[in-house]
Every structure is written in C-alpha cells, then in structure tokens.
C-alpha cells in the first residue's frame, strides 16, 4: 500500500490534490464496505463516520480547488455538527436495539422483510 502511494507521489503532475481525491474515494469505499459487511451495529456507525470523514475531505478539497476555502470551512463545520447528531441518534437506536435483543447483532433486524 505504501509502495502504491509512494509511486503516486513521485509521478509528475500528481499533486496532493489528486491524492486527496483518490484517498477520499478510497475512504468512501472503505466506509461503504464496512456498512455492508459488518454484523455489528456500532461498526455501521463507524463505517458511516469514515465515509463522512472522506466527504469532509472532498469538500475541503473543493474549496481549495476553487479558492473559496472559507465557504468550504463553513460547510465543514455544519457537516460536523450534523454528523455528530446523526451519530448520536444512531448510537441511541443501536443501544435501544441492544436492550431489546441483548446483542448488537445486525442479523436480529430481519423482522421487516418481503
């Protein structure tokens, strides 16, 4: 992995902007992968958080690219606030589910289907 990154760094025309973009995408993939594959409710929240980190990165990158970093910053602050509230709500629901089922198992959530 390091090798991969290292080779990218040395390529001409590849500033850290492109690196940020690629790492942002990779982190979104990692987050989505986490949400899809895990069996643990809280891990889903972690996956969501990781994806949101990547989105934050992309927004800051966008501000950088168009030179409007101040606006991007204000976006990021708002996103962080929302992100936290969503995380709290998700954790609250997960804990409530834990109280019902006695586990954080996602496979409990099969009552609603069809």
């Amino acid at each position, binding site marked *: 992995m390091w090798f991969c990154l290292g080779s990218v760094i040395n390529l001409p025309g590849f500033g850290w902007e492109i690196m940020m973009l690629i790492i942002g995408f990779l982190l979104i993939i990692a987050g*989505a992968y986490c*949400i899809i594959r895990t069996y643990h409710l809280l891990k*889903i929240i972690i996956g969501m958080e990781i994806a949101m980190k990547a989105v934050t990165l992309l927004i800051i990158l966008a501000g950088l690219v168009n030179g409007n970093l101040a606006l991007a910053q204000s976006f990021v602050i708002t996103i962080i606030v929302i992100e936290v509230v969503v995380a709290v709500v998700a954790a609250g629901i997960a804990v409530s589910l834990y109280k019902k089922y006695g586990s954080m198992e996602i496979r409990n*959530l*099969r*009552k*609603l*289907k*069809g």
Partner: protein
Amino acid sequence: MNLLIALLSEGANLLWFMIVLPAVVGILVWIFREYHLPRLLLVVSSAMINLVCALSLDQAEGFARSFSFGPCGLELAFRIYEFSALFLTLTAAAFLLVSLYSVVFLQDQKSAGLFMFYMFISLAMINGALLSDNLGVMLFFWEGILCTLFGMLLINNLHQPKTAVRALVLSGTADLLLMLGIIITVVQAGTPKFSEIQRLPITGVSAVGFLCMLLGAVGKAGGMPFHSWIPSAAEDAPTPFMVAFPGALEKLLGIYLSVRIVTDLYDLQPGSGMSTAVMLLGTLTIIGGVAMALIQKDMKRLLSYHAISQVGYMVLGIGTALPVGILGGLFHMLNNAIYKSCLYMTAGSIEKQTGTTDLREFGGLAKRMPLTTACFTLCALAIAGVPPFNGFFSKELVFDAALESNTLFYLGALLGAFMTAVSFLKMGRVAFAGELKLPMGKKTIRETSFGLLLPMGVLAILCLVLGVVNTWPLDQLFGSALGITEVYSGWPHSTMLVVVSLAVLALALVDHIYGCKKTGSALQAADHIYYAAGLKRIYQAAEQGWFDPYRWLVSLAGVFSDFCVLIERQVSWFYDTAAVKVLLGTGDRLQQANDGSLSRYLGAALLGAAGVAVIFIVML
C-alpha cells in the same frame, strides 16, 4: 299557445321544433304511460301539430340554417327545400295515421307507453335526417333510428332478442355501408354539405362511394340484401311496428335518400353500368321478395315479403335514372306506404279479433268484418296494379322506364307483378271469401274498433283517390319537387304497356283458378308454383335460409368467430394464467430477495447508483 305561435312564426325555429317536439312528446308519453286517454290525446295532437309544421314548411320558401356548436367547427346544418319538405309532410301524414292506429291498437298493453316513446323519438330522428344538410349530421339521426328500431323490437322479446339482434346486424351493416359511402363522398366532394355537393361523376372511388351509399339507403328501405329481418319481425314484433316501420316510415326515409343520391349527390347516367347494377338489384328484390311471399301461410309474414318486393319497384324505377323512372319510383313509394300500411293494419285488425294471422286458422271473415274486408280489397287491388288504383299508375311508370332501359328488367318486373297478383288473390280469398272459419276457442268475432278503422279507411280511400286523381301527386308533388317539366300524369301514354299489364293480371287470375282446382283449396292455390319442376329446390333452399344474407353473415361470422375463439383462448390463457403467474411469480421472487438484510438494501442502493452511472455513460 303564444309560445307555439312564436315558435312557428320563425322558420328557423320551426326546423328545431320539428326535432324537439317529437322528442319532448316522446318523453311526456313515457311519463304518462299508465293512462290511455292523455296518451291518446297527446299522441294525436302532437302528430297533428307535426303535420301542421311540416305543411307550413312545405309552403315556405326553401331556406337553410346552420347552428354551429362545439369547439371543432362542428355545425348543425339544416336545410329545407321543396323535396325534403315534401317528404317531411308525407312522413308527418303517415305518422299521424300510424300513431293513431298504434295507440288504439296497443291501448290495453303495458308496453304502449314505451312503444310510443320509441315512435316519437324515431319521428324526431326521421325529421332530423330529412332536414339535415350535413351528411354527418344526417348519419347521426340515421343511426338514431337504428337504436329506436332495436328498442322497439326488444319490447316484447327481451328474453329472446333474436329478431332484434338480426335487425341490428343487418341494418347496422347497411348503416356501416352508408357511413363508408358518406366518408368517400365527403372526401371526394371536399364538403360534407348536401347543398354544396354537385352531382359527382360515378367513376373510380366515387363509384364505390355511390354504391355504398345507395346500398345503405336501400337497406334502410328494406330492400335486398338487408331484408331478412323484416319477415322475422313480422312474427314477433307488435303489428303497429310493422305498420309504421317496414310499412311506411323506413321506406320514406330510404327512398328519400336514394333519390337524393341519384339526383343530387351523384350523376347517375341512364344506361350506364351503375344504373344497370341498381336496376338489377331492384329486379332481384322484386322477384325474390314476391316469390317468398307466394308460399307464406301467415298474413303478416306474407305482407312482409311484399314489403320487400315493393321496394324493388322503387329501386328499379330510380335505378333507370330516367325522370319517368324516378317519378314512378317515388309515386310507387307513396302508394306503397299507403296500401302497405293499410294492409298491415287490416292484418292487425284481424289479429286483434281472431288472435292470429295464420291463414290456415281462419277464413271467410267478409261477413263479420265487412269494412276491414273492403279496405283490404281496395288495397289488394292497388298493390296488384289494377286500374284505376294508384298502384297501377305508378307501376306503369316504372314499367315504362324499365322497358326504355332494358327489356329484361321489364320482364322481370312483369313477373313480379304476376306473382303479386297471384299471392293477393290467394290471401284475399282465403281470409275473407267463403265460409266463416275461426281459430280454436273463438266463437264469434266483431268488426274492429273505430280507432283502427279510421286510419285504414282513410288509407284505402286514398288508394282510389290517388289513382283517379294522379295528376295531383305526380305533377304537383313529385314533379315540381324534382323539377320535372314533362307531364306523366293521367292515363299511361303507352297502350301496349297497359294491355300487357292487364294480360298479366288476367293470367294471374287464370293461374289462381287453376291452382284452386288442382289443390282444391284457395290456400294452396299458389302451391303449384312451389311444386313446379326446379322451383321446388330453390324454394326449399330458400326456406332453409340459403338465400338469407343474415345466415351467410352468421356462418361467415361463425368461421371468423371460431378463429377468434382460438385467439381468444390463447389470449385469455395469457391473461388468466401466464401474465398472472409471471407477475405474481416476479413479486414472489422480489419478496424473497428482500429478506430484510441491511446489507442487501445497501447493495441494491449501490447497484442503483451504478445503474444511474451506466445511464449517464451510455448517454455520453
């Protein structure tokens, strides 16, 4: 009353009035269907008002009015001029008599209100069709008559609507042809207005349009090949229906349109191929109809076949495209309406008294029903073409035209006249002459009521009057309406024709006596024709319905419907089984796939996003 005067004072309003009045009266009659007296008064008074209106329109100068309505430039174009005013008047007069007869005839029956309702709606439609100056509007009214016809035939036979369906199919086919013809005509002429179409030449597509329109019009009049519902209607429809529709009103309407097609819309040249075709149709109708009439043993059925046969004369006359032929055809139509209605009425009176019209069950009514017998005799003489009754003069005119066009058709028409005379001799003798014979259960009978006798008498006397004073109808009515300057009234011009006609009548008498001698009964007087070599086959075939176009249609439809059933089965299999299975099966699969797992939800969403991406890539 003020309203009525106001309505009548303005000619344009009168046009509306002619259509609205019968419709409103029809509804009123239906509302008062429980009460005989108001119904009678309403029917007679409104029929008279209708006649007065028609007469006043006849007196007025010809004029046209258009009432535009609707968004698409549709307009209700009406036009009154001499010819249509004449027919309007004739219709109104016929309707007055017919409605009087009907309302009296049906006074004890439950269905009287409904029947009269249909009658008046039909009158509204007929008036509309006669008045309309727009082919499309006319077609609307024309189809309206089909609807009321169907309704009337259904009245007594709601559970076995065979006749009604038969009438609907045949008349519907005729109307379909008419519609097709109208479409072709309008396209060819570039305008849907009667008054703007100038005698189109009959070539190419126009010929098809002409033929379709004429077949449709003749079909409404009851000519071949759309006739076969009339005899079966004679069996199960109320007699007033037979008097009104196959007897008078439909003939008027059908012949009106036929004449207009031949004289106004299309340029039918005497001696042309199309003219010959129309004449052939007329001759075939004459012979076919009368030949079937010859062997009928039921009065109404017999008269029905005559009703068909008589249309043939009119078509023959019109088909010659000669002024004398058209005049003869029109005059014959008028005469036929008079004597055929009267004949149906006598049949109805007999039915009312004896309970049957089967000639095998009664006979010798002359003593008990002298007035009916007198009416019948006058009309029978008229239809057989005995001078000086009206039928004689109109037939002579048609013969004249046919001889001028083609001798073959003349001979055919003569054959028809011969058979007509024979069949009426038979019917008259069986029904009225000889000893009284009553059907089972009847002890005595009386003369029929005044309400029925009045229209019968008027009509019967008209037969004689119109024959003697034929100048008036021929010159004043039809001649001037058609713009014919030559004088055809008075005694026939050609002595030869008269001699031949009289010879034919004499031959008929001889044949009748021969038949009576041979079989020993007047009823079977005509049966030797039935048993003549070769003819028997044809008759048997005809009795089995081989010449019945309805049957052809039905068997053709049978093959078609078998084919349709085959397709239908596949289609219904598809709908009932395959499609349902596929849909429900897909639903089941989807439901199984949706197992509540969050991973699958997310996976589906990501796949969806990928799908949107694919759409974008494809569009790039």
